[in-house]
């Protein structure tokens, strides 16, 4: 096996670090998102942003930070 072949490995370009992260991905969320259109996915992002802002505001009101 020459140097180029060793670098190319077995043709599998998977990154073991990424594979480790992948074990912790909640695929149920992804499957739900894939049922939506891209436009619906973006509108959901906006809705979640608003929700996160409201939670942060409530936290500041409650805890004064």
């Amino acid at each position, binding site marked *: 096996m020459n140097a180029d072949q060793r670098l190319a490995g077995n043709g599998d370009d998977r990154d073991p670090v990424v594979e480790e992260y992948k074990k912790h991905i909640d695929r149920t969320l992804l499957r739900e998102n894939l049922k939506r259109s*891209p*436009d619906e996915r973006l509108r959901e992002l*906006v809705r979640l942003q608003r929700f996160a802002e409201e939670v942060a505001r409530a936290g500041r009101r409650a805890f004064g930070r």
Partner: protein
Amino acid sequence: MTDFEGLLQALVHAGVEFILIGGVAARAHGSARLTQDLDVVYARDSGNLERLVAALSPHAPYLRGAPPGLPFRFDAATVHRGLNFTLTTALGDIDLLGQITGGGSYTDLLPDTGELELFGVRCRCLDLDRLIAVKRAAGRPKDLEAIAELEALREERGS
């Protein structure tokens, strides 16, 4: 909070040639992650620089994180002299990228894009394979989880 709808509509209505990348592109592909800013790769021809400036100037663009009061002018000459800009605007944060690591310019990326309708306007978005490739090329540790999710999405689509 970034007004993604407002920013996209401003760019599209001004006729700016751009490609969505980053977190919003990932979201359009089905990512469940939240993102705070809009990342776009823009075409660098002079006509497009003029349109880009016309689109964003009404929204008070300024260098994000820079101290206030700098003599920053968002005009075509400034964009021509520079390449990548991280800006804050009245509509929220936007990254204007003339070139990206592992992806190159607007023209280089164009074959790997698709057209999407978002918030009532049509715009170009980097396809999932290229999005993964450019995130890998960027080599930032903070992207590892995002890459894992995008690869999982690709697997889910194929299954």
